[in-house]
């Protein structure tokens, strides 16, 4: 499995970004993971669309969308379902219609495989969450078994911990070099 300190794999995939006709799809690639604007990425995976645990969890992430935005973090949801399944699920489910983040379609399962999060028998993704820093490096990974839901607050807590806060040279102590951020 891709783990802490490793570069997030390169990819380019279709994602569902809207249920509005003609505006459903967008290509998302890993290029923007590495950026000068100090934007972090939080990518979370679920096993299958149209299943029970997933929409609750996805809706929780969506509710916290503003919390991620305020922390300069882009949220991406992903599974191995196709973009058409994603779109159908979003149209079908009340809690998913107003999703503010893209649903990535890893239809070929190549990204899940490269990340090492494919469940071996069914070949679906585990409930994995990745926090990627603005240099494209994985800083946190959390993988749950297929049936265990996630705690979004915990993801935010970790993100807070990872993002450097004390950038002020006031944090300087005697005998310590001042900060060169």
């Amino acid at each position, binding site marked *: 499995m891709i783990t802490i300190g490793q570069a997030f794999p390169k990819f380019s995939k279709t994602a569902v970004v809207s249920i509005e006709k003609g505006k459903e799809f967008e290509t998302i690639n890993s290029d923007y993971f590495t950026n000068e604007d100090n934007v972090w990425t939080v990518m979370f995976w679920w096993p299958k669309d149209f299943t029970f645990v997933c929409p609750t969890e996805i809706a929780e992430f969506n509710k916290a969308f503003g919390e991620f935005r305020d922390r300069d973090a882009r949220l991406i949801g992903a599974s191995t379902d196709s973009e058409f399944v994603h779109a159908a699920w979003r149209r079908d489910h009340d809690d998913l219609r107003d999703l503010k983040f893209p649903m990535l379609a890893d239809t070929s399962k190549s990204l899940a495989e490269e990340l090492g999060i494919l469940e071996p028998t069914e070949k679906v993704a585990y409930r994995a969450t990745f926090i990627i820093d603005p240099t494209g490096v994985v800083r946190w990974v959390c993988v749950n078994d297929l049936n265990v839901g996630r705690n979004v607050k915990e993801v935010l807590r970790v993100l807070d911990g990872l993002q450097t806060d004390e*950038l002020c040279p006031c944090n300087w102590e005697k005998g310590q070099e001042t900060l060169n951020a």
Partner: protein
Amino acid sequence: MSEVTETINELLQSIGLAADYRTDSLTLLEQGESRYIRDFKLNFTSTLTSEHLSTKECALLALSVAVNNNNKPLTNYFTKYAEEQGAIAADTAEAAACASLLASNNIFYRFRHFTQKEKYTQIPARIRMQIMMKPVTGKEFFELMSLTISAVNGCEMCVNAHEDSLIKMGTTEERIFDAIRIASLVTASGKVIY
């Protein structure tokens, strides 16, 4: 019209305030025909001039201090003046942001420095300071503004830390000194205009 009232009128006019604007302290100065009012006017005018800072920089520093000091008329005045000197909305926003952020940092780090307890330096601050990463007014100027606010708020170690980092960036002592002069005068102005 008495001489002192005349001076007051000129002062009010330059700040864009109505001729009948009075605060309690301004009234006291006027009634006592204080000689100070002339010094006050000259000092106020001099907040906007420096050999080591551009007029826009003077205006943004003054604005930041006015925000830090919760001074509405001076905040309005320096905002308008900064805009006239070419500051865009993002610049004036940053002056306000710097005042607010440094107000928290000055309290927080001053506490750490006061107590000098190792334990307090180990607990994470949990104060977000992302605007320090890429300030729109530039790293050096933001640092100068941070130093200025720290001086007003009286955090010794913050002042030393920002001063030290400015010197390392190549800022001259004259430039730093002028920023502090502006801060002291804006704060003094706020005792009469508020």
